[in-house]
Structures are given as structure tokens and as C-alpha cells.
């Protein structure tokens, strides 16, 4: 196991992501942050808080459960049974720029599922993908608009984001 990022580095990456997102918001367009369960949810909440502070108004934040949109439901791998959790988006996504947030961008399959799920909820003006860590291994033609950190990892390695809300520690590791 190797630590790629510590708490301080994660914090500074979130700040950079916040600044880049704010810089890109066009005049007169509302934005909202939606995190993919489960680590994406936490990253999204942190981003929304920082964005709200920076912009000076409350940026809505929601959570998306993509289980029903996964592409492997009919070809399950042994050991990990997908668990349906709740989607909690209590605002209208129509005409907003949605910052879709996940912890790690790897194959791109989660992002694909999330986009399909979002479109069933409404018609956003745009969807932008923001991730804390970007690593090689894409299987779909999907790239992040905002990638915090580019991790180098071999295909068989697992890049994990650990956050204090869910894991009681704050680091990004590869193993």
C-alpha cells in the first residue's frame, strides 16, 4: 500500500477544484452539485460547501444512487452484490449546470450510469464531471472536466479514497 495523498493535499485539491469550477460558471446560470454514492456523495458535500462560501449563496447539493443504472446487473460478479440505496435530489435539475462528483474516475462506467440516471430526472443545461482522483483504465469515452489529482496505478491496483466521514481517516491510497 502506498499513500498518494494526505489530508492536507486533499484539502488543497478540493480548493483548487472549487476555484476552477467557479471560474467556469457563466453569468446568470445556476449550478448544483450531485455526488455519486457513496464516496462521491461526501466529496460533493464538501465541494458544495466551498462553492457556496466562495460564491456567497447556497449551492444545492444532492446524492445520486446509480445502482439501477449499472451495466453489470445482468452479469454479476461473485462477492459484490449491488445494493440499492436512495437518490436524494430535492431540487429541480432543469436548466442548471450540474457538477457531477465522484471520488475516483476509473473505467468511466459509473459516470455513464450517472448521466443516464440524471437525464431521467430532468434536463440540465450541462453536466460537468468533477473527480478527486483520475486514474488510467477508461473503458468508455468519458473524461473529467475537473480532475483533482492524476494517479499512476497499474491495472490490477486499486486506488482508494478514504475520507473521515466514512473511513475515519483522510488519505488516498493505492494497493
Amino acid at each position, binding site marked *: 500500500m502506498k499513500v498518494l495523498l494526505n489530508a492536507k493535499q486533499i484539502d488543497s485539491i478540493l480548493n483548487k477544484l472549487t476555484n476552477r469550477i467557479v471560474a467556469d460558471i457563466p453569468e446568470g446560470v445556476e449550478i448544483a452539485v450531485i455526488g455519486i454514492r457513496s464516496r462521491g456523495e461526501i466529496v460533493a458535500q464538501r465541494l458544495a460547501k466551498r462553492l457556496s462560501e466562495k460564491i456567497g449563496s447556497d449551492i444545492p447539493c444532492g446524492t445520486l444512487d446509480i445502482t*439501477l443504472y449499472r451495466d453489470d446487473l445482468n452479469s454479476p460478479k461473485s462477492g*459484490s*452484490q449491488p445494493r*440499492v440505496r436512495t437518490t436524494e435530489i430535492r431540487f429541480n435539475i432543469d436548466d442548471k449546470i450540474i457538477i457531477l462528483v465522484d471520488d475516483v474516475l476509473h473505467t468511466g462506467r459509473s459516470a455513464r450510469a450517472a448521466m443516464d440516471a440524471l437525464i431521467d430526472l*430532468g434536463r440540465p443545461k450541462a453536466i460537468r464531471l468533477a473527480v478527486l482522483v483520475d486514474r488510467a483504465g477508461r473503458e468508455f469515452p468519458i473524461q473529467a472536466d475537473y480532475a483533482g489529482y492524476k494517479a499512476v496505478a497499474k491495472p490490477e491496483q*486499486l486506488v482508494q479514497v478514504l475520507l473521515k466521514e466514512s473511513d475515519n481517516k483522510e488519505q488516498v491510497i493505492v494497493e
Partner: protein
Amino acid sequence: MAEKGKTKEFKWQRKHLLGLRELTAEEITYILDTAQGFEEISARAVKKAPPLRGKLVVNLFFEDSTRTRNSFALAANRLSADVVEFTKKDSSVSKGETLLDTARNLEAMGIDIVVIRHNAGGAPTLLSKYINACVVNAGDGYCEHPTQGLLDVFTIRKRKGSLKGLKIAIVGDISHSRVARSDMWAMTKLGAEVTFVGPPTLMPPKVEQLPVKISYSLDDVIEKVDVINMLRIQFERLGGNPFPSVREYSHYFGLTVERMKRAKPDILVMHPGPINRGLEIESEVADGKNSVILQQVTNGVTVRMAVLFLVNQAAAEKQAEAQNG
């Protein structure tokens, strides 16, 4: 997406839902938790999600039903499955061997899930032994109606937070009620105390062996219960003279405005529907602020979505296991 470090997560393994009696409290809770994730689908603009896309669900109903059949069809549709209706009317069906013949025919059509209602208890279990598809019991004889039991506990849990320690009365024709049985299993497994209330003539044989209390007087229990489930008087099933007159039944076992005055202020009033207004329940009570009768209907679709999803998941996993050796 990968979640590591969690110790031994619960895994749903049943490709059939035949009854609640055989389920553990953990399994029931898992279905209810899963159902919460499906609630939002019915509330949004596009009331559909794709997990059963390309799957074929057959509604095989040997008994009349509107609500349950439509609820299952809607649940299947909302998960993007295709639904074929197969009812008694359009098939010359006569129990026993023809059930198996029907099943073999359905199998030949490539079905994935059979939702079956049958007047013979045990028919879904029998069916599950002869076909590869998932079998979901939508009511068999006087045995079980598992999705009704699940939607009832889902509704209660949503309003009360938990079933633990709740006192629940199920009132009416217990002997002919598969709802009472499925409710009893689900509620007691989740920690509630259930009392069957009704005249002795409408209690099932050997009722004292069931994990319930028994009362022959609604007046004795009305003040104590947190939830009251009023069963429909099913005239189509009643033989003999279980009570002298409808008026007398209503007088002793009807949920009236008068009786409600003595109930806890936050009592939940439930009914599996369709209601006989003025018989087992007065209109003012059925439509009153304590009534969750229409929420039960809404929750029925939600819970059935979860059940269809879970049995299909279990089937997919079993198939994958078989293929991988």
C-alpha cells in the same frame, strides 16, 4: 465504486418470494431498505428506471384481482420489464396438472419472473419447483400474500420509524385472510406484538399456535394499539353463517368514529382494500387523518419494485455462478 473493508455484508439470495414465514427479520428489513431506494422513481418526471430492461414478467392470476395485478404490472413497467397478463378468464384453467402445463408453456415463451395468484395454498411453491423462472407469490389460498405483508410493514415503518414494540391489531375475518398471515409473520419478526381480533367463527383452526394474541372484542383492544389493520369481509369466501348479520358484525367489529375516539391519537388505520364502506370501517375513518390506506397502495408499487428487482438479482447471480462452474 468498490467498497472495501466492510465485514460480511448481507446478501440477498432468494430467486423466489413465496412467503414471509420463511424469511428472517434481516431479509425482511433488507427488502424494506431496498424499497426505499425505489420510492423516488414514482415521484419523478420519468417514472422509469432500467434494471429489468429486456426481462419478461408474467402476471399469472387464477383469481380475480385488480389492485394487486395492476400494482405488479406497474412495478414491472417502472423497472422497464415487459409484462404479459395471463388471467383465468382468457385461459381455460382448472388447477393441478394444468398449472404445471401452463407453467411449461410459459417457460417456452422465455419468461424471467412469474407473479402468481392462485386459490390453492402452496401453488407458487409447487410452480417454483418446476420452472427456472423466478416465482413471486401474489396470494395463495389462505396461506400468504407476502407483498401485502411487506407493504404493510413498509408503511408502518415509514410512519412510526420502527415496528419494535408496537402493538398491532388485525381485525376481521382472520380465517380466510392470507393478508393476516403474511402481516403476522412480517410484523412479529420485526418485533411488533400482534393481536388477531374477530368473532370466534372467523378465527382459523389452531390459531393459538400462532405467535399472536387473540381477542374477541374490538372494544377491549382499541385503546391499546398503535396500528389497526381492518380486513375486508370477503363475502365471496364466507361459507355458512359466521355472524348473524352484517349489521351485527359492524356493530361489534367495525371501526367507527365512536370507537376511534377511544384510540390513541396517533393510531395508524390500515386496510388492504378494497374497502366495504360502512361495514368493517366507517367512511369518516377510512378517509380520516389517521388513515394510511392510500399510502398503502402507493407503497405497494414501491415494495413490489424492490421484490422484482431482488429476485431477478438473485437469479442473475445464480446463473453467473453456474456458468463459472
